[in-house]
């Protein structure tokens, strides 16, 4: 008797209840993205591939102070200093080993010159390990961010003054 009751309960109550959930989802829009063609927008704080900033006059911000290397928990930053024509200190070699890097963002937090940032790039695969040692030339932005004032201001507001800016 009990078995029969349970079977009836199954057929008329718990099974339709579960199926209703499945059925409801037939009419919902898919939440998935068609990845290589569509991409999810990244949050402004996203920690991706590093880049090195320049001053507005085009000179490098990084003074090779070594603080980012000191803060790096993965010990993946290597640098050697030199002096430029004006006698200012800058990096002769500045390398980050992206295979060791854990993208923790400590370097960005440590940098007293606002020189290194973690950008939005996350698709940087390659064929051999050597090409993951990113050099200064690869990471320096090609031009000062004057050409894109909006981005620059946003980043400055957020990073320098600690004002939260992001939205989802």
């Amino acid at each position, binding site marked *: 008797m009990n078995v029969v009751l349970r079977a009836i309960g*199954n057929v008329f109550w718990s099974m339709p209840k*579960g199926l209703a959930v499945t059925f409801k989802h037939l009419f919902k829009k898919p939440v998935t993205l068609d990845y290589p063609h569509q991409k999810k927008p990244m949050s402004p*704080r996203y920690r991706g591939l590093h880049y090195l900033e320049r001053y507005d006059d085009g000179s490098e911000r990084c003074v090779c102070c070594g603080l980012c290397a*000191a*803060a790096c928990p993965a010990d993946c930053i290597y640098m050697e200093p030199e002096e430029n024509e004006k006698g200012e200190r800058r990096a002769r070699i500045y390398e980050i080993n992206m295979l060791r890097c854990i993208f923790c963002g*400590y370097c960005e*937090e440590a940098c007293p010159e*606002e020189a290194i940032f973690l950008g939005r790039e996350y698709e940087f695969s390659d064929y051999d390990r050597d090409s993951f040692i990113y050099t200064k030339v690869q990471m320096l932005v090609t031009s000062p961010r004057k050409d894109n004032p909006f981005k620059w201001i946003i980043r400055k507001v957020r990073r320098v003054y*600690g004002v939260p800016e992001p*939205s989802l």
Partner: protein
Amino acid sequence: MATETMHINMGPQHPSTHGVLRVELDVDGETVVRARPVIGYLHTGIEKTMESKLYYKAIPCTDRMDYLNPMGNNLGYSLAIEKLMGIEVPDRVKWVRVILAELTRLNSHIVWLGTHALDLGAMSMLLYTFRERESILDVYEACSGQRMMSSYIRIGGLAHDIPRDFDKVVKRILDEFPDKLQDYEALLTDNEIFINRTKGVAVISAEEAINLSLTGPMLRGCGVNYDVRKAEPYSGYENFDFDIPLGKNGDAYDRYLIRLAEMRQSLRIVRQAIDGMPEGPYRARVPGVVLPPKEDVLHKMESMIFHFKIITEGFKAPQGAVYQAIESPKGELGFYISSDGSNKPNRVRVRPPAFINLGSLPSLVEGRLFSDVVCAIGSIDIILGEVDR
């Protein structure tokens, strides 16, 4: 007819062992005679690595233990160091930490729910739960910049202030989640197959659970009322109103019900926290220990000096040892840190809930059916990253 027990290795590549757990099983026909979990396939030496790092640099290591509970691990470690250093954090920090820790509990429990149901043959659950998980990961990303390895909670505060529309996003989760939980319940709670596979399976008695020092839903499933959030409140949990769901039978089905109820309680805590969020700084001001805000570093000499000093040398902790436990989604997650007065910990020991709960596997499955092993492993809720560290 002469029978022999058969020796079976389950894992380490078995899909239902949630990573790289290997279980050595002796089976007599369909009955398990002896079970022995073999661990260590994911051993990364995290505790030892933490000992070789400055205090603040060990935070990214904690993320990588229980990767479904990154914020909880950050929180546990930060609280331990704050206890060691005697740092009192601002209320706002506590509230934000509570919100994130509870969202993390949701994150961990829904992934558990999806994978556990998948183990038992309910494939669609996984797809639904991962959809919901996305909204929580979005909050992580907005706060910290990373979806899993957040490193957001720092010693003495947070890495950044919360994003501007944080409460809007969290409230959206709060509004959506109860419906989603109802969907899960509709799919599983009365589901005959699910009930048959979990009710009365992987049973453990309260006495045995205490003897094995189980914590979390494993312990509360047998009706023992122990939750670190109530027993030893930390990070302002005493200010929130919530219940501890308890089970009766100590079987896999009760653990399922408890985890669902815990998710509801988490939503309750998050709602209280987000409504009563105090204003204030996002970091304690402790010169020489907690990094000063970046704007000060750029404009004030002393802050700049402290910034350089903390980053290059870290800070020296007083001699002594602390133990700080938090209630992670899996149970009591404790950090025991002993300091010899230098700027690196002398010894770091993590009390991993998943590891200790896994020790109950032999008592859960021995003498029972072979097919219940998968359900037992699933219902313990192990994360091998934390078991092996």
